[in-house]
């Protein structure tokens, strides 16, 4: 397989995942903005949406003030913002198009029709009331893409590189959401949160579609900040947790290692991170600093991405 | 005359080079009055370099190297025996049909001023004296001046400006000859530089096809036909086609180049 093909598969999946994550973050932002008398005011909610999506700096370069309309435009339609939904789908589709022959027809058609339909959506038509339906549609399209991929692709290098892109993007996304709000997850003297705490905790869970699964998993169903952190970092049952994403990242890398009969430093890097997560416990993490832990993780994740690119000759 | 030549080109870079491909026209080809005693190219990757003859009879090397730090040095060095033949080149194998050397390229397209040169010198049936007159005229009208022109200066521009280096002199000569329907080609090589010679040791001149005589060299920069002080390396349609080193690279950031050419009379 060409190094460029591998790179395109990786980025195709990464950008599809990014589009889905962005839709989810926007959903949370939108929800909060609807709440009357949100204590901090909804403007700050949109600020935190920008931060969680790592788009705050790019936004500030373009806009002086934060308004719902501007943030929505920037995160959905602005092609100057490489992480906007539109830019993400377009990049994913261009990568898919470049490796069209490596994809099954179902995968290609799912990605191609998503772009064709999205390209028809006029930014001016995106009024607040239409936002939820649109965001649902994006999530469904990405899920249909992922379904096509899982259901039709041969389990060879094509599949493994797609998987890598998918899970490394998800790992980055979950870590960032946690890091932006890490301070509200720190243990406190009392385990009873204020209304505001409750609201913020729920929001974190919603950002990763985990507000229901959390209750299912922790049957006493009360929000406890360290349990939320634990759920999103250390629980293999949770499909957006860091440990889960690294389990699958390692599976994909092992697949490549076996297929090609060769292991590289990316294999060691991924294994180290996974072991750290697998044997980790929240107490230790809190003691040595949640923020530091997340920052380390984000850095290690970026280094792994770089290492994969080098080891497999991405252009 | 036995000549010793050392032609070193050194490149230095701000960053390591990821990949580089270099094409060299740095190998003299023997003919009746020029015999190579020894010749070698030293460069990274030279031992596995591609090595072939092009359609004009030139020996070409193409080398590649990966992941190295500068400076990179390419050295062509050797000893060549030359005999004076008043510029006449015999016994050189070149498969290209002569008509190819009538092609007007960007740098060898004549303008009105160059056409006037053609009319003045190359109207008569006997063209050999005319070509000498042309060479002399260009030598007088175009002063040798380093830095007045650049690699892509055309014959028309240099002639209008009245200044240039050997490349420009050769291009003007070629443009004028081709305008008269006389095949002419661009030649690179080396020259023993004595006092007052208008050129550097790395040199270029022109060759024109003279009926019954064959290819004859003309060096308008020095107003002479090549003698046994000249070593002929490569010939093409114009300078761009036979650039001694042409390369492409990835990485390296900024590049600095230094060229040093030594040509000396060697002991027989």
């Amino acid at each position, binding site marked *: 397989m060409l190094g460029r093909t591998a790179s395109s598969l990786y980025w195709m999946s990464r950008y599809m995942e990014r589009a889905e994550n962005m839709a989810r973050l926007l959903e949370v932002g939108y929800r909060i903005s609807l709440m009357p008398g949100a204590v901090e005011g909804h403007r700050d909610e949109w600020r935190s949406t920008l931060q969680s999506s790592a788009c705050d700096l790019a936004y500030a370069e373009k806009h002086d003030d934060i308004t719902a309309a501007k943030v929505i435009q920037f995160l959905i339609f602005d092609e100057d913002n490489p992480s906007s939904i539109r830019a993400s789908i377009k990049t994913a589709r261009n990568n898919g198009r470049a490796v069209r022959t490596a994809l099954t027809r179902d995968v290609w058609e799912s990605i191609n029709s998503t772009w064709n339909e999205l390209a028809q959506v006029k930014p001016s038509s995106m009024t607040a009331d239409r936002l939820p339906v649109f965001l649902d549609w994006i999530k469904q399209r990405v899920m249909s893409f992922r379904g096509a991929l899982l259901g039709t692709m041969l389990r060879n290098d094509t599949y493994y590189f797609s998987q890598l892109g998918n899970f490394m993007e998800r790992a980055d996304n979950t870590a960032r959401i946690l890091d932006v709000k890490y301070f509200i997850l720190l243990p406190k003297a009392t385990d009873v949160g204020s209304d505001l705490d409750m609201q913020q905790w729920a929001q974190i869970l919603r950002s990763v579609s985990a507000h229901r699964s959390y209750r299912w998993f922790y049957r006493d169903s009360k929000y406890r900040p360290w349990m939320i952190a634990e759920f999103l970092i250390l629980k293999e049952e949770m499909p957006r947790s860091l440990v889960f994403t690294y389990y699958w990242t390692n599976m994909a890398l092992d697949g490549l290692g076996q297929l090609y009969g060769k292991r590289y430093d990316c294999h060691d890097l991924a294994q180290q991170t996974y072991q750290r997560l697998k044997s980790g416990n929240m107490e230790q993490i809190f003691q040595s600093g949640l923020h530091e832990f997340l920052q380390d993780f984000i850095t290690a994740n970026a280094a792994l991405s770089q290492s994969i690119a080098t080891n497999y000759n991405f252009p | 005359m036995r000549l010793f030549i050392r032609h070193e080109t050194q490149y230095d870079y701000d960053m390591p080079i990821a990949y580089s491909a270099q094409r060299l026209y740095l190998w003299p080809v023997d003919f009746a009055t020029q015999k190579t005693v020894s010749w070698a190219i030293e460069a990274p990757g030279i031992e596995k370099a591609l090595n*072939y003859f092009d359609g004009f009879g030139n020996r070409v090397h193409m080398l590649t190297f990966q992941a190295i730090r500068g400076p990179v040095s390419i050295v062509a060095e050797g000893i060549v025996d030359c005999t004076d033949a008043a510029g006449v080149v015999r016994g050189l194998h070149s498969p290209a049909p002569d*008509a190819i050397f009538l092609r007007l390229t960007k740098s060898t397209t004549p303008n009105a001023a160059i056409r006037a040169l053609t009319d003045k010198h190359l109207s008569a049936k006997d063209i050999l004296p005319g070509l000498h007159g042309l060479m002399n005229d260009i030598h007088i009208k175009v002063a040798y001046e380093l830095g007045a022109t650049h690699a892509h200066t055309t014959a028309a521009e240099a002639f209008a400006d009245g200044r240039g280096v050997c490349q420009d002199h050769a291009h003007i000569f070629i443009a004028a000859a081709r305008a008269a329907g006389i095949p002419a080609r661009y030649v690179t090589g080396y020259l023993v530089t004595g006092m007052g010679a208008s050129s550097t040791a790395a040199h270029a001149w022109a060759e024109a096809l003279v009926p019954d005589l064959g290819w004859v060299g003309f060096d308008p920069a020095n107003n002479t036909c090549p003698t046994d002080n000249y070593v002929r390396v490569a010939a093409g349609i114009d300078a761009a086609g036979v650039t001694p080193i042409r390369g492409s690279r990835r990485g390296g950031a900024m590049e600095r180049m230094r060229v040093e050419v030594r040509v000396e009379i060697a002991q027989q």
Partner: protein
Amino acid sequence: MSTVFNEMQGKGGAVREPYALIEQWLKTLSPKDVERALKEAEAIFRRQGITFAVYGDNQASERLIPFDIIPRIFAAAEWRRLSAGIEQRVRALNAFIHDLYHRQEILRAGRVPQDIIIQNEAFVPEMVGVMPSRGIYAHIIGIDIVRVAENEFYVLEDNCRTPSGVSYMLEDREAMMYLFPELFSQQRIAPVENYPAMLRQTLESVAPAACKGEPTVVILTPGIHNSAFFEHAFLADEMGVELCEGNDLFVSDGYLYMRTTQEPKRVDVVYRRIDDAYLDPLTFRPDSAIGVPGIFDLYRAGRVTLVNAPGTGIADDKSIYTYIPDVIEFYTGEKPLLKNVPTWRCGEKQDLAYVLDHLPELVVKEVHGSGGYGMLVGPTSSRREIEEFRHRLKARPKNYIAQPTLALSAVPTFTKSGVAPRHVDLRPFVLSGDRVRVTPGGLTRVALKKNSLVVNSSQGGGTKDTWVLED
């Protein structure tokens, strides 16, 4: 225009033999059937992503080429004659290119003027002396042919560089077989779907002599923004070869390799779909970012085969076109089986005078233009357009050739107002490698606008499936 040859109705109004079945079938189709079929066809093409990009048209930078469901049909005997002429022409073109880059016998013999070759931009001096594998230069040629009467065919132009459109030929057939399978069981239609296999065999057969074992073939594309990218991907897929961009290939120690996720892999044959000028920054345009540095040196040294060879454009240049009948005679010793369209060379005084006097009747083309741009179609142009063109023509006569306006044959086509005849041309594709192979049929392009003679897809043309009936 009154004597347009209708390929279905013929001259006297009686249905011509090859169309007998289709004519009956058309009668059975209700407007609803047609609508449904056209919709389905469009959906197939859209899903597959069979699009082409239109330069300078940002709005709809990816469009579908309209497809018409009524096939264009040749009888077996008809095709045998055509195909013999095509093959003769292709052999002559390859011999011509070889000669131009070696001894230039045809110039020495004075059959083609020296200047129009030597000073031609499409002539690549660096190709002089290069002997490609099997001596073949143009491995893939598309010849544009028009018909004006039962037995009168003309070659409009030769495409010896990187002719495109073969993917439409294949997809049109695919769509027809999907939509109307019954038509294919009722008569024997020569298959075209083995084209990719033939192409691969052709490409493998011209691997460098130095290549041992099974040659590795790749397609080199300028990338996803190229107007024909779909075709590049399609052919790579159908042939089972890698689709590479310039960055995927590199020269190392005298051989060509592709960058893979594992060890670099040797490449022997490159079917390149990028223009000569961009192929190699070491020899051609130094600013090319889509080429491969050093690939042309490998080619010259016989380490890799480039398909088509650089410099084949000299054989399809419009200024050379008028000499092709001489070219055929010179190299084959035979009379040309296929005729050229009579052509005036505006660079010649007498011809120019005639052309200027007859502009409203003529088609005037730019010598170096393509795609139907920069041309004048006299009969359908306004007086002002003609006068404007007259100025351009007078200013640079050498840049133009002129031809009579041919009454291109017409084939019934579905239009908004029902079935009506529309003008067509034909581009058969010819492969030259271990042997010469002519696709049975080719790409039929149809001018969808009433009375229009411009079939180019960039100017609103569509395509039809092309059938060659077997005996």
